[in-house]
């Protein structure tokens, strides 16, 4: 397995029925880059993220994740969908953190973190438990391994969810509005875990409304509207001095 951690897209198009949600999307994310995607609701930013780990399929265009065509193999005339096993393997290399955490409620925090390695990779249980403990410790939840998700606060659940994704040793981590469902006072604890992760050189794509996080942690910023990428560039530069009037209008409202 190579350690690539890049995302490359050209001309991605995606529609749900008659509604086009992604149009002409180009994306180049380098290994270790932190990229924030911002934009109003319904702008397609979540859909773009979901395409990158195969929760949605793209209709058209090139999508390479970790240097491989994602979910498809290419022949002279077409892209052919990969068999489920191969797709699952590609997915294990891309971690996803959801807005609603989506922890498995029937498993403890530790079991949640162990689920991927044990069930998918066939890792030895003892070894996986040890690793799960380390990961939970790294998100500040070392003593919470035996707790069920329902016994944890939103912020704690989201940190377990991050640990669960990290347990698969992904090259890329995707965050879909990871703090939007949290109490305002719990937002910080999740962001600081993400900040730690960024320092360790993980490639991260973050759909967020946290402009502070974008400014402090992000390398690049993408502003999306109506299925298009309207503006992209250095995160601080775009936030300070947006080129496009649409970006400026949006930032004026949220900042």
């Amino acid at each position, binding site marked *: 397995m190579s350690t690539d951690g890049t995302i490359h897209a050209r001309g991605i198009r995606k529609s749900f029925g008659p509604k086009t949600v992604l149009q002409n999307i180009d994306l180049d994310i380098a290994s270790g880059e932190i990229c924030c995607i911002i934009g109003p609701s319904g702008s397609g930013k979540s859909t773009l993220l979901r395409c990158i780990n*195969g929760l949605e399929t793209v209709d058209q265009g090139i999508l390479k994740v970790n240097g491989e065509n994602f979910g498809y193999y290419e022949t002279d005339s077409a892209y052919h969908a990969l068999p489920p096993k191969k797709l699952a393997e590609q997915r294990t290399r891309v971690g996803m953190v959801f807005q*609603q955490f989506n922890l*498995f409620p029937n498993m403890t925090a530790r079991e949640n973190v162990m689920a*991927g390695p044990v069930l*998918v990779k066939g890792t030895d249980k003892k070894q996986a438990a040890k690793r799960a403990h380390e990961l939970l410790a790294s998100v500040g939840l070392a*003593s919470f391994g035996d707790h069920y998700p329902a016994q944890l606060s939103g912020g704690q659940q989201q940190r377990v969810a991050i640990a669960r994704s990290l347990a698969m040793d992904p090259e890329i981590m995707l965050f879909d509005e990871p703090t939007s469902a949290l109490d305002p006072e719990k937002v910080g*604890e999740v962001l600081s875990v993400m900040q730690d992760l960024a320092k360790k050189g993980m490639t991260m794509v973050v759909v967020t409304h946290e402009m502070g996080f974008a400014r402090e942690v992000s390398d690049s910023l993408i502003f999306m509207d109506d299925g298009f990428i309207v503006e992209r560039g250095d995160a601080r530069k775009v936030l300070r001095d947006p080129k496009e009037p649409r970006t400026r209008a949006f930032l004026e409202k949220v900042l």
Partner: protein
Amino acid sequence: MQPVIIERSETTMSGMDPALKPRLRRRSTFESVAWVVCSLVGLGILISVSTNPNFKWGVVAQYFTHETILRGLMLTIFLTFASMALGTLLGLGLAIMRASSIKPVAATAGVYITLFRGTPVLVQLIFWFNIAALYPNLTIGIPFTDIGTAIDVNALMAPITAALVGLTLNQAAYMAEIIRGGFSAVGKGQIEAADSLGMSGAMKMRKVIIPQAMPSIIPATGNQFIGMFKETSLVSVLGVAELLQSAQLIYARTYETIPLLIVASLWYLVMTLLLSYPQAKLEQKYSRTTSRLPRKAKKVVLTAPEGIAR
């Protein structure tokens, strides 16, 4: 200075502190009338039932633990457990097929469920009993060769086999719908989380979907169980000597129809009540699903201090 306690002028009326007076429930006239009428009707029925000699309570008592009746009861219990167990397994298979993204597989399960839920179970039982009319011989062997053996379907479909097959196949269709309902109660996010970890379809089913569907499946299955216990009485038409048929065998000889039907009914009632208790417990246990707290979670005590993200 403001007064600390509000003036108690009413106290003088009865000498009682108005703040401590009990608040009484309102009894409507209808409630009182209902009490009287229902008591009278109940009493009347009781007197009639106990004094009418045609009930022959002595006969009821005599046959309540009669060997034939008890043997019938055992067969009824066996049929209930066997057809529930097999029906649930087959139903689970059908529910998984129904949820399949492969059209022919899902459609097969759909047709099965429609057929078996859409026709009366009594008709199905008689049908399986007479299946030999359609296929007199069942040959098990390798196609296009002479290797194999032929089985006489008439001999195979003994009444009890037909009963078991009929009840199981019918129950499977109902269980499939219950289990499918449970599956669809599992959130989309859960499936996406499993997908993003790279879980295979079977793994997702076993570790994520089925465990979370259980809270809605188990109480409904308990209901089916109680229903099945009474449904087994239908197989008496095939001549299977279960509880009802046993009672019928006796009264065909003694002409004590009503007392023996009472014997059978009492046994059905006793068993249903016995099954209702665990059923109520199960429902209680799983009705807390809104809190999404699994059972084991109760044992964990929150003592550790909250960790701080670094």
